[in-house]
């Protein structure tokens, strides 16, 4: 539910019509003293209202990320990308546009590639997420990660996580049959450094090698 906002409404009216937060925040100190017990005033000053309100505004979310089960509480408007990066500190998944136009945020949701910036986190309840951090088997790199190093499939490295997650999915989907097909099915992942030819070579090697990718 979106926040209720009442800009320009006189403060006293807000006390009657507003939400619990409006009441505590917008009533102001003096009004609050007149109407509320001292404990609540103190609570307002210490932003306890935020904490209480936040509890009601958030929704429970259970996700398995890279083999670890997480029980989270997230705002309905939070994207999967934001939750991964800011709540779970999995910053390997990158934000390049926040609009589903660059692919830097690509992760696997139940094995399929998804732009995590276009996926509201709560729509992933009970789903299994794999991010770039979960691709390697311990110290042993996934063949696609190794192929990206061998073929120099990146420069600055910022699009790389998304490229690799997309590349693994591209092979799974059966879309890595030829150079042309790889180019087409990797065109949702922008690389501004221009590593495309090397990325194609890396994917071809893994694809032809019959690797477990």
């Amino acid at each position: 539910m979106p926040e209720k906002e009442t800009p320009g409404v006189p403060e006293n009216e807000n006390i009657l019509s507003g939400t619990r937060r409006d009441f505590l925040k917008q009533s102001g100190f003096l009004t609050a003293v007149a109407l509320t017990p001292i404990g609540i005033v103190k609570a307002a000053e210490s932003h306890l209202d935020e904490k209480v309100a936040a509890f009601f505004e958030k929704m429970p979310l259970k996700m398995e990320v890279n083999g670890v089960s997480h029980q989270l509480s997230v705002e309905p408007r939070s994207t999967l990308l934001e939750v991964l990066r800011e709540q779970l500190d999995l910053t390997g998944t990158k934000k390049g546009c926040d609009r589903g136009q660059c692919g830097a945020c690509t992760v696997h949701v139940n094995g399929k590639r998804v732009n995590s910036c276009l996926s509201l986190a709560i729509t992933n309840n009970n789903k299994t997420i794999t991010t770039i951090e979960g691709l390697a088997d311990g110290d042993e790199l996934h063949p696609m990660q190794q192929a990206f190093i061998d073929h120099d499939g990146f420069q600055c490295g910022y699009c790389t996580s998304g490229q690799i997650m997309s590349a693994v999915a591209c092979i799974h989907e059966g879309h890595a049959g030829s150079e042309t097909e790889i180019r087409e099915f990797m065109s949702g992942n922008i690389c501004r450094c221009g590593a495309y030819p090397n990325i194609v070579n890396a994917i071809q090697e893994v694809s032809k090698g019959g690797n477990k990718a």
Partner: protein
Amino acid sequence: MKKDTIGEPLSRVDGRLKVTGGAKYSGEYKFPGLTYAVLVPATIVNGTVTAVDIKAAKYAPGVLAVITPFNAEKVPGYQPDAKKPVKGLKLFNDNQVHFNGQPIALVIADTFERATYAATLVKATYQVQPFETDFRKNIDKGVTPNAGKYKDYVRGEADAYKNAQVKIEQEYIQPSEMHNPMELHVTTAYWEGDNKVTVYTKSQGVMSSQRAIAAAFNLEPQNVLINARFVGGAFGSSLRTWPHEIAAVQAAKFVKHPVKLTLTREQMFTLVGYRPLTIQKIGLGATADGKLTGITHESHSQTAVYEEFTENAVNVSRFLYQSPNVNTRYKVVPLHIGVPAPMRGPGESTGAYALESALDELSYALNIDPIELRLRNYADIDQERNLPWSSKHLKECYQLGADRIGWANRSPKPGTIKDGDWLVGYGIGCGAFGAYRGHAEAKLKLMADGSINIQSATTDIGPGTNTAMIVIAADVLGMPAEKITFDLGNSSLPPAPTQGGSSTVSSVGSAVHDVCVALRQKLYTLQGKPRDSMDEIDYAAVIKEQNLPYLEISVGSESGDNAKNYSMYSFSAHFAKVYVHPLTGVVKIKNLIAVVDAGKIVNQKTAASQMKGGAVGGIGMAMTEEAIIDNRFGRYINGNFADYHVPVNADIPQIEAVFINKPDPVINPVGTKGIGEISLIGVAPAIANAVFNATGIRVRDLPITPDKLLS
């Protein structure tokens, strides 16, 4: 005698971190109490902010503060009495609006979502003034820049081309092009007390960021710590410290919390520079046998009303070809838009597009092969500065590229080669970019186990700086690369220049070279050997034998006086083979060969990638990229990746990078001249010329979209 290992392919030393998500960029560090800042853009183009209603935003959940021109604490460096006044836009310092999207408020909240939402609640009122964003309409208001080096240039006689036997006079248009690195511009800042601040920011130069922020907040530079360990691309957009970076530091001071400010992709179209829209007129005159008798190059570029931006758009015409008569004129047109910034191959790529296109047109007018025409006007010295080249192997570039692309299959008559439904064409485009070397310092530490750590405050925006430095060190020290680490991206390290102008390997690589030589000399001296001995060194053994816990050594390195006697440039010749579909106007780039004289190549693997990457940038310039302002509203209408088309994988063929790989004898001890810029300069004209060769249609306004080929 030790083996020369420079140039051998080495995989990136930070590759593992980058493929596992372990590489941390400036917006990815966690701090207790981290808060999130979101900018509120102006909705007008020119005028003043008369009021900002922040009440709703301030009371929105999680909001700590809303900064506006009316409540901002003054930034000392923005004031007229500042010791080192900050140049350019001064956010929240006054209520003037100079372009659409200029931030007029900053909201700081405890989460990104809350800050983003609260930013939508900020309501500004404005006094609107008339604005000018239409470049063509205002081109007559172009002015010669204040900076002296942009004065009109004349060698011999001006406009001599007009009296030539054969002449070309044409206009070429380079649209505004956005850097668009994949990483959003981001700054995270936190203060310790009132006099010390730590900043993680997207920067090409940690030392210049340190100087800029220290000047803005009137701090001692050593009390400003800048981190930019990993930078997600930049291409020039992080050469300077932008107003939003100062704003993040200002906000962190105000809310007394760590603040992270991330631009949106759309904001990156207005706040972090771009290659300016430039209209150029070229006049070329030649004798019937193809000797240039006159070159005239005039250019008009966008700039901002609040700050003048200049670049070397016309300079390439002064030195790339031999001509007794050359004149250039460069003007900028101030408009109500954000200020441009140098973008990969700044100036030269714009200028080379015009010059190399015009030269191609001249080749058809003369009926002389384009490569032959270039050979007949080959410049054996730099006529602009009247100096010899430190090295120039452009003739070899022509030859190698012609062989690889299959130039012999080219038809001198456009539109005559077909492959099925497709018309086939070949084109060449050349470029040059100055080879620079700045003062850089490096510190080396030899550990007891014989391993080496080297430090220098350079950055790596993608080329693989640390990998290149380790290659140089391994070569000088005669030890395996695995035993060497290199630290960069932090202002507390020994000073180094900003990563820009293709100069990092030349500058920092020289310091690394010199510090390794100094170590060898020191160790030989300790052993009582002549300091220039070439004996193999067992580093662990020497340090044990000398009973030292470790050994540290620092050097500073810069050009000698001899460099002043030469003109130093990297040179490139790019070759394109294109297929054009005559019914749809679709262009397929079949093959692209980049042949480069950039001196010694330090790491064939990463250098080839950098060359290919520059070629991809050149393909974007030629084929897809154009930032468009709707002049009715003074606003970009394609400020996102769906509407502004950077090349995607499907647009890019296999690209071949070919290096002459001959060390420059003058510029630095390693002999490198730099490849970052040259990789892009000349690509767009090679493609445009190939499209003409295929179709007979000369597109003089980039990008070459299919509609322009349907005549």
